[in-house]
């Protein structure tokens, strides 16, 4: 594919999902053209970004053809029909491998689609492929992927965040206008923040977990990644809703997030700044951009107050007890008996030994650490002091949120304490890595709704900063409303989206896949 054609194709990859969908619906461009343009973009930049683990070119083009056929036949199309999407490799797909970023599932092909996968396909969304992630969603940088890290399109020497770093990088690099991630401790919002895009964690249970390979069952939430708030809202609606296959799925209508994204008015809205997250814990530039965002909200008519959520300082330790506990149990099934890697079966070894050798070879260090930590926390004699106590702390954190939401409509904080750190900087320091989730974790523990929207670049390094907006459970629309208002005002100030300020990625001409 000669780069000379990059003109039109390049334009197509710069469009938003909403724009693409409208163009396809209007017959201005075919879904196949759109998909091809994005596949070409992947070829051009993914050798450097490394967002994708698997690109399903043939399947994607077939799906795109299907959209074109329907359109030609006058059949009704969904609001995102023909729009390409990057799917985190933690959701099952029948026709593509699902590795969860792990050697233990390196060549696993599931016999079933996740509910989210099915809904995307039913909506006419074109799944381009599966994206890189921290192994089994454990991490904040994709450096825990068994297949190598992804790279931040803003600076290829830096992390794209995690665990949904591949999806975030793909969207930020214009490889797809839409991405799906999953958020357990911040794994959608933090990558979105450090990649300068929008990332949303819906209310827990808002999107089905059926087919989402479980890390922490009571925390995992699939959600949208996009370059605009409206795009994220459109994807949010397409992927969400009650699923009878998931007992924890919310049996209530999807909150009106698209309408909210179009109603970007915060006048009279009560905004709370979380005291515990506004102190000196953040990088200077992050704090500065955050403070400006808060001032912006005030200027748009919001009433801003400080709100204290005293138990939030215990959120990180509580999370790092609950999540590993659940994951130690969820990952037990990877035992070499029914699927996945099997190591050491020489005909003499016992099943127990083969299990242990396989898991030793198949899991990376972070996964091993969390499995052991979880096993410890659930052990008889330790349960009450660790897991049991953490679940109580979780209730207290939820109560802090409830009390706060009596006073305010939304809470705000920086999404993550720093901008994208260099690859390798925290890879051997688990505790330093965990700090990336400091501000995002409370919303996972309480299960409420939280979005990250870009709010500027940190002056010291020119890297994106995210503003986190939190709302009560089932009030997801509020986060979109505020996010859209901030986005509109800031884009006016910047003269365009934040991403436009990123350097163009050098096209890797001549290298084929």
């Amino acid at each position, binding site marked *: 594919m000669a780069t000379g054609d990059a003109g039109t194709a390049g334009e197509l990859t710069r469009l938003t999902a909403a724009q693409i969908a409208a163009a396809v619906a209007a017959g201005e461009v075919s879904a196949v053209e759109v998909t091809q343009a994005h596949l070409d973009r992947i070829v051009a930049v993914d050798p450097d970004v490394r967002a994708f683990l698997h690109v399903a070119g043939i399947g994607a083009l077939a799906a795109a053809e299907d959209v074109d056929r329907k359109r030609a036949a006058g059949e009704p199309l969904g609001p995102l029909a023909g729009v390409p999407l990057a799917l985190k490799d933690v959701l099952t797909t029948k026709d593509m491998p699902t590795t969860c970023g792990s050697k233990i599932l390196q060549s*696993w*092909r599931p*016999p079933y689609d996740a509910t989210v996968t099915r809904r995307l396909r039913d909506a006419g969304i074109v799944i381009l492929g599966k994206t890189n992630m921290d192994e089994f969603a454990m991490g904040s940088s994709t450096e825990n992927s068994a297949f190598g890290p992804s790279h931040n399109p803003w600076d290829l020497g830096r992390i794209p965040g995690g665990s949904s770093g591949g999806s975030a990088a793909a969207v930020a690099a214009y490889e797809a206008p839409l991405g799906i991630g999953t958020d357990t401790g911040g794994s959608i919002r933090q990558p979105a923040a450090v990649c300068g895009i929008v990332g949303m964690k819906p*209310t*827990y*249970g808002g999107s089905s977990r059926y087919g989402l390979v479980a890390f922490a069952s*009571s925390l995992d939430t699939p959600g949208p990644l996009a370059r605009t708030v409206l795009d994220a809202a459109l994807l949010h609606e397409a992927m969400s809703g009650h699923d*009878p296959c998931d007992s924890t799925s919310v*049996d209530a209508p999807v909150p009106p997030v698209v309408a909210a994204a179009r109603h970007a008015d915060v006048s009279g809205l009560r905004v709370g700044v979380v005291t515990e997250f506004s102190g000196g814990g953040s990088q200077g530039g992050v704090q500065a951009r955050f403070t400006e965002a808060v001032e912006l909200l005030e200027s748009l008519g919001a009433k801003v107050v400080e709100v204290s959520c005293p138990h939030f300082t*215990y959120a990180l*330790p*509580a999370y*790092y*007890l609950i999540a590993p506990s659940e994951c130690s149990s969820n990952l*037990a099934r990877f035992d*070499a*008996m*029914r*699927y*996945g*890697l*099997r190591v050491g*079966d020489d*005909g003499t070894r*016992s*099943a*127990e*030994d*083969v299990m*242990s*050798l396989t*898991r*030793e070879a198949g*899991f990376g260090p972070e996964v*091993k*650490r969390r*499995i*052991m*930590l979880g*096993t*410890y*926390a659930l052990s008889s004699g330790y349960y009450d*002091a*660790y897991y*049991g*106590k953490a679940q*109580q*702390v*979780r*209730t*207290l954190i*939820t109560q802090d949120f409830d009390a706060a939401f009596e006073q305010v409509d939304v809470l705000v904080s920086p999404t993550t304490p720093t901008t994208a750190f260099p690859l390798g900087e925290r890879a051997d320091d*688990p*505790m330093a890595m965990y700090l990336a989730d400091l501000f995002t974790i409370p919303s996972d*523990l*309480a*299960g*409420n709704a939280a979005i990250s929207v870009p709010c500027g670049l940190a002056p010291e390094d020119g890297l994106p900063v995210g503003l986190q907006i939190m709302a009560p*459970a*089932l009030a997801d629309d509020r986060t979109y409303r505020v996010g859209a208002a901030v986005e509109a005002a800031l884009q006016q100030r910047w003269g365009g989206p934040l991403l436009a300020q990123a350097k163009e990625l050098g096209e890797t001409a001549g290298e084929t896949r």
Partner: protein
Amino acid sequence: MSITRDEVAHLARLSRLALTDAELDHFAGQLDQIIGAVARVQEVAAEGIPPMTHAVPVVNVFRDDVLVPCLTPEQALAGAPAEEQSRFRVPRILAED
């Protein structure tokens, strides 16, 4: 010290992880640090506070006792590391259940 190397070795056995000695040394130090940090939850007074169940509390989610199509044996066995007579072939099991 929150956790000893022997305790870590025990945890590894419980979780079916055949760690190398080098890994054991490495993880022991890290787990010790992490456990020390997460133990902070014990500082919180939580008398009478119920443990959290779900964000949107709900009870009685059931399905009807109605058949749903299954996988075929081929699909079920598709990823099997080893198979014989339409069953999953596994190495010899030591413990009586």
